[in-house]
């Protein structure tokens, strides 16, 4: 924090036009932030589709019949805890501490995988009682929205494994810690999307 403040204070003396290019970390972080925002716009479109279609059950099961609140609370807890352990992991990456990076990121992976297993078991249960995506417009919208989120979590887990291999082989080069920084942003953004999912899809079902 003191380094950041120092840099900012000295930056005020230098005009913007003379400061030169921003460091790669800032540029990469900003570019990834723009990607995340466009990803959130995709989710916004899926949320809009779900909000429009959530009443169109075509005589099939409704949201209140299908969703179990306790199940969702456990899923939410997994994702929230994994967000915090991911934060601890990125602190470990900054201090170039290999063993605690492995420790926190392994916990992040386990919690993310637990979330995915819970979600897949929910989906397979719904499929087995004939509430698949082809049953009604409501269920199509549900599987698209929640499935896209689950797909993002899956991609995040793959990315995490790749990053752990990069730490093992390349060490904490600036390149690797930059990628880890972007992974952290991605993982936290997924958690933000999940807040929307559990509020609108699961809690909205019981109103």
């Amino acid at each position: 924090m003191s380094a950041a403040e120092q840099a900012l204070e000295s930056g005020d003396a230098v005009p913007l036009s003379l400061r030169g290019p921003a460091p790669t970390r800032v540029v990469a972080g900003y570019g990834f932030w723009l990607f995340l925002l466009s990803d959130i716009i995709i989710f916004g479109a899926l949320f809009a589709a779900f909000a429009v279609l959530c009443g169109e059950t075509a005589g099939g099961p409704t949201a209140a019949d299908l969703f179990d609140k306790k199940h969702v609370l456990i899923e939410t807890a997994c994702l929230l805890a994994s967000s915090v352990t991911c934060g601890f992991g990125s602190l470990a990456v900054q201090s170039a501490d290999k063993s605690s990076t492995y420790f926190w990121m392994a916990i992040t992976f386990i919690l993310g995988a637990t979330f995915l297993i819970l979600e897949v078991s929910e989906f397979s249960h719904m499929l087995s009682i004939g509430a698949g995506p082809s049953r009604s417009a409501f269920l199509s919208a549900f599987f698209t929205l929640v499935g896209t989120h689950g797909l993002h979590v899956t991609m995040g887990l793959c990315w995490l494994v790749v990053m752990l291999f990069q730490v093992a082989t390349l060490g904490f080069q600036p390149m690797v810690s930059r990628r880890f920084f972007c992974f952290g942003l991605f993982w936290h953004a997924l958690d933000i999307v999940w807040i929307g999912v559990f509020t609108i899809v699961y809690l909205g079902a019981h109103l």
Partner: protein
Amino acid sequence: MSTEIEAQGMAPGANVYTHGTRQSYLVGLGYAVILTLASFWASSSDLIYSPGVPILLAVLAIAQMGVHLVFFLHISSAPDQTNNILALAFGVFVVGLLVFGSMIIMAHLNHNMMPMDRLIQMQR
């Protein structure tokens, strides 16, 4: 952080991402847990005037998104974050247009559509 910037030979005033400490993550976790439990409680409680529950849920969700942005994604109003804030504001604007626009338009269409049984009668 500072060593990396020095190693790259950056100009002074190069903006730096501020990172949280372990404590700030825990504070964020605390807020997030409280808000999550509150919204789960509010959705099933009889204590709250029931037409107000969706509004309460929306408020709790937006508050929790704010907590995540500040404590986990470290978005702040610091001068080096102006670009991030502007991009975020634009993203929120587009998402708002998309979601509320779709809902208003589809509600209008639903409202103006002939009831389905009469539509089927007309086709006979």
